[in-house]
C-alpha cells in the first residue's frame, strides 16, 4: 500500500485479508516517508525520514484484520483467533505499508494469500480508497532477500500507465476550482534491513485528447508524493481536459566503473557494469474541487504494463 497517511488530519484504515482456507502469517512493515522536518516542504535539503517499523500478524482461514493506522490494533485476549498487535505509527506519518506472507518462523512464503484495501479519511469525512498492490509469489525461497524477477516473485512493471483529469482544469461535473492530481510513488527495490532507501529516475510521457505529447524526468527517493505539475512540466494541461500518462522507471548501474549512473541497458554501464531496474509502484489521488471551497477526493490504482525483473526487497533481520 504505497499511500498511508496519519498526520493528525487525515488517517488511514487498513483492511488485510487472508483469502486462503488455512492459517497464514504476514510480516508487515511501515516505511515513513515524511520529511525529516515535517514543518518544511520535502526536498533534497529535507529528505524522507525512512523510518521502518515492522510487526507480525497470524491470520486464521479467510480472516480479515482491520486497524486504524494512527491507533494501531490492540489484541483481544478473549479471542482465540486474534491475529496480533499492530503498533500505532509515530505521527506525522506519510509513507507506505508493505506486508509479506511468511511461515510461522518468519521466513517468506509464496502462498499468495494476502489481499488488502487502504481507506484514507479526511477530517471532513471525505474518503478515498484503493486496492493494495499485490506481487505474486512464484518459487519463493526462505531467505530474506526477495527477488522480484518473475522467478521468485512477480517482477515490478516496466511501465505505470494511467488516465487522469488534466491538472489545473475544472472538473467536468463539479465545474469548480481546478483539479489537482497527487501522485504517490515508491521504488520496488528497498533494503529494509540496512535502511537503505530506494531511488528511481522516472521518465514521464504524457499525451492528451489532441495528441499533444510531452515528456520529462523526475526522481523518486524512498517515497514521493507530489502534484503532477510539480513533478514535471510534461503534465501541464495545455488546454486539454484529460491526460494519458506513462511512467517508465530507468535502471541504475551496479558494478563497473560508474556505479549509480542511470541507465537503460547494460551497455550504458562502462567497465562491465550491470543495469539494474529498481521498479516503481504507486497510486493517484485526484482532488475535485467544487464551489464554496469544498472538494472531493478519489484514489485510483495505476495500470501496469510489461515486467521489469531486477528489483529486490530485503526484509529486516529478526532480532
Amino acid at each position, binding site marked *: 500500500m504505497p499511500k498511508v497517511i496519519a498526520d493528525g488530519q487525515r488517517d488511514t484504515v487498513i483492511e488485510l485479508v487472508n*483469502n486462503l482456507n488455512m492459517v497464514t502469517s504476514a510480516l508487515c512493515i511501515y516505511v515513513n516517508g515524511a520529511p525529516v522536518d515535517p514543518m518544511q516542504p520535502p526536498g533534497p535539503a529535507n529528505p524522507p525520514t525512512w523510518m521502518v517499523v515492522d510487526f507480525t500478524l497470524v491470520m486464521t482461514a479467510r480472516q480479515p484484520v482491520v486497524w486504524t493506522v494512527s491507533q494501531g490494533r490492540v489484541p483481544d485476549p478473549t479471542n482465540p483467533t486474534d491475529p496480533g498487535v499492530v503498533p500505532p505509527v509515530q505521527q506525522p506519518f506519510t509513507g507506505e505499508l508493505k506486508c509479506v506472507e511468511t511461515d510461522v518462523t518468519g521466513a517468506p512464503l509464496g502462498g499468495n494469500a494476502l489481499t488488502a484495501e487502504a481507506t484514507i479519511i479526511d477530517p471532513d469525512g471525505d*474518503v478515498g480508497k484503493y486496492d493494495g498492490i499485490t506481487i505474486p509469489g512464484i518459487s519463493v525461497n526462505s531467505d530474506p532477500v526477495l527477488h522480484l524477477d518473475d522467478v521468485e516473485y512477480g517482477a515490478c512493471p516496466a511501465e505505470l500507465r494511467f488516465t487522469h483529469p488534466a491538472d489545473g482544469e475544472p472538473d467536468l461535473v463539479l465545474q469548480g476550482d481546478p483539479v489537482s492530481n497527487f501522485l504517490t510513488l515508491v521504488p520496488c527495490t528497498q533494503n529494509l534491513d540496512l535502511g537503505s532507501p530506494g531511488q528511481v529516475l522516472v521518465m514521464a510521457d504524457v499525451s492528451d485528447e489532441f495528441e499533444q505529447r510531452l515528456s520529462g524526468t523526475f526522481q523518486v527517493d524512498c517515497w514521493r508524493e507530489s502534484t503532477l505539475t510539480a513533478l514535471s512540466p510534461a503534465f501541464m494541461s495545455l488546454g486539454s481536459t484529460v491526460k494519458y500518462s506513462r511512467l517508465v522507471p530507468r535502471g541504475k548501474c551496479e558494478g563497473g566503473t560508474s556505479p549509480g549512473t542511470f541507465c537503460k541497458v547494460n551497455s550504458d554501464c562502462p567497465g562491465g557494469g550491470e543495469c539494474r531496474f529498481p521498479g516503481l509502484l504507486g497510486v493517484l489521488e485526484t482532488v475535485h474541487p467544487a464551489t464554496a471551497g469544498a472538494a472531493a477526493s478519489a484514489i485510483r*490504482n495505476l495500470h501496469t504494463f510489461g515486467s521489469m525483473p531486477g528489483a529486490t526487497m530485503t526484509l529486516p533481520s529478526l532480532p
Partner: protein
Amino acid sequence: MMGRCKGKAREMSVRDGRTGWTKASIGRGSAATLSHGLVLMSIAVFLSAWSTRSDAVVGSERPAAILVFPLIALDTGAGSNRDTEIEIANTQSTEVAVECFYVNGLGSCSASLTVCETAADCPVGENCVVGWQTTDFLFKLTPRQVISWRAGQGLPQLPCDPAFPGPSCLGESAGSIPSTPTDPFLGELKCVEVSDTVNPVPVAANDLIGTATIVDHAGPDAASYSAIGIESTGVNNHDLVLCLGAGGSTCPQAEYAPCPAVLGMNHFFDNATVVNGTVRSSVTLVPCSQDFAGQQPTSAVATFMITNEFELRTSLAVSVRCFRDLHLAENPIFGVALQGSLAGYTRIQGITNGPINVPLLGVVTEEHTPTGGGAARRAAFGLTALGRNPGADIITLPALP
C-alpha cells in the same frame, strides 16, 4: 451508428501506416490475408498479437481488449446532481477502434412506467419491472489518445475528428459517444476493441485502459475505480461471438481470458463506525456473459460466503439478472450488529441451478457518513479475481444492419 456486415465472414480493416485504410478479408476460423500495402511495423504488431497468450487475465491492472465498467450512475433530477466521468485511453501507438454498450440496469414501474431501481421507487401496489436496454456506439482513437466524457452528456464530437474544426492532429478520430439513454441511469458500460468503425469485428489486441469517477454535487463527492480489463489471448476468429475461456462447441478456443471463478471482497460491515463515520456499502455485480445480439439478459444466483474477524462464517444468496446493485444493508447478515465485527471478507460466486458457474464481475461502493452529521462521502474499489472459470463465457455482439 454506422453500417456493418451481417453474418460470420466479415471484413476487417488493418491500418496502413502510410496510405490510410486497407482491407483484408478474414473469415471465421480462417487465417489472415494481409494487404501487401502494410508497413513492416504493422505486421510485427499484428503477428505478435496473433501468438496465443496463456497468461491472459481478467483484472484492472493491465491494458486489455474488453473494458467493463460495472457501475455507471446518472441522476440529475430534483434534489440530485450525480454523474459519471468516463476516461478511456488507447495505450497503443497505432489507431484503435472501440465498440461500446451502455446496459441500463434500471426498470420501469409496472403501471406508471416511471423509472425505478426497486419496487420501493414505485407507487404502492406496483412492481419494478427490470428491463435490459442496451445502447451501442462506435468510435476511433488516434495513437495514445485519451478521451473523457460525462455519462449524462456523451461526446458528440471526438477531438481530432477531421469532420469538426479544432486543433489539428496527425491521426484521425471518428465516431461519437451518446449520453446514457435515460436520466436517471444506473447500469453498466462495456467496451470491446474492434477493427474499425465501418465494418467492426473483434480483434486480438490489448490496448485499452479506462477509469470511471462517479461525482456528486452533494458532499461534494467523487469515487473512482479502474475498469475491469478482459485480455485477449492473441487468438480471434473475428466473428461476433466472443469466447471468454474455452469450452463447448461454440468456443473450442479461448479468444479472451476466462472470467474469475470467485470474487473476493474486503469490506466493512454495514453501520460499522470507522474513524468518526458510519459506513454502508453496496456491491454492483454484472454477469460475464452477455447476449447483446439476442438481448437476452443473463441470470445468476450470487452466493456470498462471509467470514468475519472471529473466523465465523455465514452465507447468503441473491439473484442477479443482467445488473444488480446490492446494498449490503438489504440483508442484516452484512450488519455490524449481527456480525459483532468491524470488517469482513466475502467470497462471491455466481451459479445457476445446475449448479453451473455463471461468473460475475463487480465493483464496491463504500459510503461514509460523518457521525456528527453531514453528507455521505463515497469511495469505490475493485473486487479481487480468484481462480478461473473452467468453462467459457460468451459475449455476443449484435450484427448491425
